[in-house]
């Protein structure tokens, strides 16, 4: 079956990649750094995030029908290309293990507090493995369905919370601009750089797909800015900083038509969708990289890393890694491609 995604499926994949690390990972760090101005740093990060986004779209267009492995080998040569692929592979494996750890932690804390983490791990591993094996077409369709559900949940959430805003919680504005820049870089590292996984998407001749990715990026960023804004404006920084997942506690304020309350567990399911989709796309990214046939072995390596190595791992390792691997290496790819193009023209 030919690998292709429709425009909406491409958009839905972009949406989930952008949102995935927000809940419980980047937002908590941004909140502790920028405090009342967290929404400003998310906005600034979204604007600066256009740079890596255009970089990834360039790679997506340049590699055409090759997969990323072939493109890197062609650009850098066999030996350097293999070294770079190994670096990409190892870091992505660690990164996905860390995300899986955060995912199971979120589910255990907010949903299944009495279930052993190992069971939660295996419960989600099964659909993950099944979806990765089915290929990008099925992943695209699943992400589109989850996108529609996410949109409904976001609409219910925002329409309820918008009336509970207390603007005095946003003061003082711009007290420390250095903290806003620092937390913007946190946002880019955790939320924008994973968009590198878009390079795994199959080549589409039409330009519309790139435009859809671009517009989805803008809309997804607006949703995240609104989430940060509502958390600060409703809970206030002091209260939000006491919770592990302040966005989840924000959902406790939602009450549909004044009748349906206590629906935070249903509304927070969008967090599960986000995590699940980035893990699916990430694992698919790994399997296509070296034409990896044995997905199940990847899964078990991830289990080993997540379960035995992760409880004490520092988040800063992950952040520095995303900047190095998903930003600096693609820049080098871009520059080498440009150089080769100029050399060809001159010869």
């Amino acid at each position, binding site marked *: 079956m030919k690998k292709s995604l429709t425009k909406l499926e491409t958009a839905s994949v972009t949406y989930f990649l952008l949102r995935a690390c927000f809940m419980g990972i980047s937002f908590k760090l941004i909140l502790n750094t920028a405090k009342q101005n967290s929404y400003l740093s998310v906005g600034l990060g979204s604007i600066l995030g256009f740079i890596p986004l255009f970089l990834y779209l360039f790679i997506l267009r340049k590699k055409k029908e090759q997969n990323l492995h072939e493109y890197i080998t062609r650009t850098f040569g066999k030996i350097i290309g293999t070294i770079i692929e190994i670096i990409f592979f190892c870091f992505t494996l660690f990164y996905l293990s860390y995300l899986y750890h955060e995912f199971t932690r979120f589910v255990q*804390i*907010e*949903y*299944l*507090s*009495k*279930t*052993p983490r190992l*069971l939660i791990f*295996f*419960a989600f591993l*099964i*659909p993950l493995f*099944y979806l990765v094996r089915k290929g990008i077409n099925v992943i695209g369709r699943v992400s589109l369905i989850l996108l529609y559900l996410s949109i409904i949940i976001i609409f219910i959430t925002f329409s309820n919370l918008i009336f509970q805003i207390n603007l*005095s919680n946003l*003061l*003082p504005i711009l*007290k420390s601009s250095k903290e806003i820049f620092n937390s913007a870089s946190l946002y880019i590292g955790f939320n924008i750089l994973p968009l590198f996984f878009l390079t795994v998407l199959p080549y589409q001749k039409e330009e519309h797909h790139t435009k859809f990715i671009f517009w989805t990026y803008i809309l997804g960023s607006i949703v995240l800015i609104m989430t940060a804004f509502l958390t600060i404006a409703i*809970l*206030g920084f*002091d*209260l939000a*900083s*006491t919770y592990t997942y302040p966005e989840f*506690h924000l959902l*406790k*304020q939602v009450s549909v038509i004044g009748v349906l*309350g*206590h629906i935070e567990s249903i509304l927070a399911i969008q967090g599960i969708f986000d995590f699940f989709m980035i893990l699916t796309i990430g694992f698919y990214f790994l399997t296509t990289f070296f034409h990896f046939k044995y997905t199940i072995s990847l899964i078990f390596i991830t289990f080993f890393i997540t379960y035995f190595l992760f409880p004490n791992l520092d988040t800063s390792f992950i952040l520095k890694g995303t900047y190095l691997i998903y930003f600096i290496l693609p820049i080098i790819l871009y520059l080498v491609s440009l150089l080769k193009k100029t050399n060809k023209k001159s010869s």
Partner: protein
Amino acid sequence: MKKIKWFLPLMIIFLLCGCNYHELNDIYLVSALSLDYDNEYHISLLVASDDEENSTRIIEGHGKTLEETFFHLNTNYNKPLYLGHLNLVLIDENAAKKGIKSLFKIINEDNETKKNFYLILAQNTTAREVLTYLSSEKVEAKEIEGFSKYLTLENIHNQITYNTYIKQMKENNISTMTSYTIKDDKLETSNLGIFQNYHLKSWAKETNETMVLNGMTKEYILSLHNQSVIIKNIHVKKKLSNDSVTFYIRGKIDSSIKDTKEVTQEFKKNIEKAIEESKRLNLDYLRLKPFLYDRNKKTNQPVKKLNVHINVQIDR
């Protein structure tokens, strides 16, 4: 392969059997909690009852520490406690003086609590007595949301929620809590408890006026010539100029009252009394330090003057 497709989702369903679902009859739906301290902690919980005659009942626990008390409650009764519908927490004066941080820590750790329950102090009476009063037939509504309805019916608007309390405490390390007392078999508002670092430090007499200044109530009942005048739709704005802060308060009164001047004068007098009291107690429960911080001013420099400007209009 087809069989595996069906087997996989079934496996997932069985792996999720660790979720903490309980039938309604198998849990205690806690609607109110009272905390008393008398050499040891006493916690009374108002829970929904499946008895036909009484819709609620009170269960009790005691211990040397709060953790021991909750442990006693969890183990001595055969049903787990469900705090998701907790609507009211009553605290005794002695327990408040001892400190309530550990109570909030225990409630905060419960994932199911909504954290917008009301907080009330009991002055000159035990919290248990206030809880019994609220659960008795003297109260019109005994349902889970009944307490807020009762308190609103009696024009008692000055309740603080848990979220507000924690926010104020984290912002300024000072928070307030309204207190109630039972006088002549009736529940009445008493003084305002001032908390510092989760311990009850002092009492302020001007409860309603402080609530108006803090923007925590939209209505105020003024006694004028043995009549009650209700000032509605109260809006408070604070403005900083040089080293003084001015409170601009505006409200509306019923059209049956023609003379707003007297109402304004009496209201202003009461508000100024509350400001004088806050100066006397030397505790920043009017939240001037957070106000200065929000306006990028230095908070260690005291505000030299506090002014009040009131505008009361007739509601047409």
